[in-house]
């Protein structure tokens, strides 16, 4: 983030953030049960596209990664791979109780409980399941954070990569993925 001598965002950053927050491209990827709330959010009744929220097919085209529910260890491996392929700036929205504290899978042997131990989360949406209204409200919150220049989870991930990597490797025993180098 470029900060000028008056300790505010530079005008270039303002323009960048304006563009970013009005074209949130969401990766069309869903885990758990929350993905079923995305079609009503995207289609005509709630019409998320009026906020610039559009689906994208591949990680390299997307800005926002939605974690829509419980994450098993097996899925976490794929999600980390997906997240690391996305281009900066990128944002993560944790969706539902399962990403916050495990939800109803709090004593499961195969699902992680706290998502922000493994990847940086910008916005959590609570509920089990969150309705499309709360999904859109979460996106609005993300837009406000981007406007204020506070949605910098992707920077935290780069700075604290060792900590995140240690947590990830604690649960993913067979780490056979490429190590990306920023």
């Amino acid at each position, binding site marked *: 983030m470029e900060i000028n001598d008056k300790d505010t965002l530079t005008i270039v950053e303002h323009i960048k953030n304006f563009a970013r927050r009005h074209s949130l491209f969401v990766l069309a990827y869903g885990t758990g049960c929350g993905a079923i709330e995305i079609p009503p959010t995207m289609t005509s009744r709630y019409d998320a596209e009026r906020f610039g929220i559009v689906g994208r097919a591949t990680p390299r085209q997307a800005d926002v990664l939605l974690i829509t529910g419980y994450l098993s260890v097996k899925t976490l491996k794929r999600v980390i791979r997906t997240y690391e392929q996305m281009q900066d700036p990128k944002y993560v929205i944790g969706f539902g109780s399962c990403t916050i504290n495990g939800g109803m899978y709090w004593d*499961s042997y195969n699902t992680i409980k*706290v998502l922000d131990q493994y990847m940086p989360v910008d916005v959590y949406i609570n509920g089990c399941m969150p309705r499309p209204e709360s999904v859109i409200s979460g996106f609005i919150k993300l837009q406000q954070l981007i406007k204020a220049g506070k949605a910098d989870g992707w920077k935290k991930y780069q700075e604290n990569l060792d900590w995140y990597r240690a*947590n990830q490797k604690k649960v993913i025993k067979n780490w056979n993925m490429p190590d990306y180098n920023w």
Partner: protein
Amino acid sequence: MSDRIQDLQKSLSEGLPQCSVEIRRHGGVELISSKENLVGVLAYLREHFGYRHLSHISCVDWLEQNQFELVYILWNYESRIQLFVKVRLARVNGSGISVRHLWPQADTYEREIAEMYGLPFDGNENPRELILEDWDNKPPMRRDFDTRAYSKEAFYDRPGREDAKDVRSVISGRSGEEIPEIAIPYTRK
């Protein structure tokens, strides 16, 4: 319906005298076999009683009796009567017998049981992993596997949310929002 079930029970008892046949619940017949007879019994049911469809193979962990119980759920399209074929196996160093040659879809169920209960199947050696990935602990569906202790050790808890206590007042206090009156009776003490 019940007449047809009783007829089936009678003909099954005559055809398979080494097995015990009982009517256990509405629309279902239970047949208890031994491990040695199992494949023969299943092939016989398939050829002579029209049980062409294997719906599922289920496994029950009888920890106190130190046994596994396999339940083969069969379905007859003509008579529309469900049949449960049960067999008890040793829990320690026991093994089931693969029925892949009778029903190819049995492979999936056998892989699942081998993975979730640690029960190998003769004729289905070294099955590929089905659901779990890189699992190196006790098979998780066994009753002596403590899933809560495992998850406590393997995964992080969110501080303050380790138990099932009600935190709605804390959360609503953060944003200055009030809990609506209709929700208060459901508050956990």
